[in-house]
């Protein structure tokens, strides 16, 4: 997980199990906005309808049901663990010693310093994104990456995304990732 000063280039994680995974689902990005519809469908209806006007071929209600999202409005501290079958969004930091395991994507709106495992059911298309991505260990699907041993690593200064490309864990700037590669909403 070495970061070059030039963040233009994609960086490669040390992969311990470099197995390319095939696409296991037809997940489409940009669908998390309707996750609240799970608990309060009637309140999110106008929002969903407006989106449907622009993307008439996509059923957000169905997507929200298939990929629910857990929102954690706190910092996860050492020893605290979250396991969820859908996506996990943390509004806070994930400190060293904390663990998140998600069936889908993981997004941390703060420092990710602990362990994150996205796509824990074997989804190699899952991503881990953080405002500051500096995990002790990252796992996506069946691929594991860890922080470099020597403390020479450069601390991140911009939001970054980790994803699997060609069987390797890659950390790249937010703008370069799969999140923005396709035309979204």
């Amino acid at each position: 997980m070495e970061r070059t000063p030039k963040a233009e280039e994609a960086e490669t994680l040390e992969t311990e199990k470099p197995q390319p995974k095939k696409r296991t689902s037809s997940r489409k990005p940009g669908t998390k906005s309707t996750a609240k519809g799970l608990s309060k469908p009637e309140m999110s209806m106008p929002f969903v309808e407006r989106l449907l006007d622009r993307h008439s071929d996509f059923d957000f209600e169905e997507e929200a049901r298939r990929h629910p999202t857990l929102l954690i409005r706190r910092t996860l501290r050492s020893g605290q663990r979250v396991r969820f079958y859908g996506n996990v969004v943390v509004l806070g930091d994930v400190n060293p010693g904390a663990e998140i395991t998600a069936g889908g994507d993981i997004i941390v709106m703060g420092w990710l310093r602990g362990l994150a495992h996205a796509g824990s059911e074997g989804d190699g298309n899952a991503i881990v994104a953080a405002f500051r991505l500096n995990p002790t260990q990252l796992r996506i699907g069946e691929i594991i990456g860890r922080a470099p041993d020597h403390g020479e690593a450069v601390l991140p200064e911009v939001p970054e995304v980790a994803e699997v490309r060609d069987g390797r864990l890659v950390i790249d700037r937010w703008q370069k990732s799969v999140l923005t590669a396709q035309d979204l909403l």
Partner: protein
Amino acid sequence: MGEAIVITSGKGGVGKTTTTANIGAGLAKAGQRVALIDADIGLRNLDVVMGLENRIVYDLVDVVEGFAKLKHALIKDKRFENLYLLPAAQTRDKTAVSPEQMKNLVAEMKQEFDFVLIDCPAGIEQGFKNAVAGSDKAVVVATPEVSSVRDADRIIGLLEAEEKHHPQLIVNRIRPSMVKKGDMMDIDDMIEILAIELLGVVPDDEFIVVSTNRGEPAVLNTASKAGEAYRDIARRLTGENVPMMKLDDGTEGFIGRLRKMMGLKG
């Protein structure tokens, strides 16, 4: 009605007992009525650090089990009229007391004292739960080491789970010269991870070893830097707005920022 403060850390050997003894003595010196509880049942230390070991007749477990009355178990300090110690039992273990019993005991003591300081044992098990049960407020002690910060973080999480919110941090044993050289974690780094309010910074001081062995809190020695830091912490606990001590000319940068943080609080 007083305030019960638990002094905890998770990791052992970072200075919980020393901190408890010194803050207690500092508060007593400032005229507060103070009781110290040694909650480290089976590994009692606070009495030794206070130099009161030879006066123990009854202990915390005796009181909780109704074997002795609280006023008989409390040991009056040698130096201060208004400082008392409730020692731990040495021959029992943590399971001898329940959190509920501790809650009642601390509530009873809060009637008599302005401050009840609870010295928490290391670890996160029963002993920690007992120590925390009756407290109104928590102070987390951490040294500038990665392992200590990690354990402090865990403890803060557990305190939140016990509904003890907004703990405060004491950074113990900092060496300004090492921080300056970049060989020691600096306080900013610690606060960034732990994200709690800073109560005080105690510099590494050889006199602490001497004072611990003699059973005289460093707070009483005006020449000791650590003693001065503990006096400041005691004053902050009574609500005074005391600026952070300047540790070294070279460290003005981060100390300046610390002062800003304390200013926000005051």
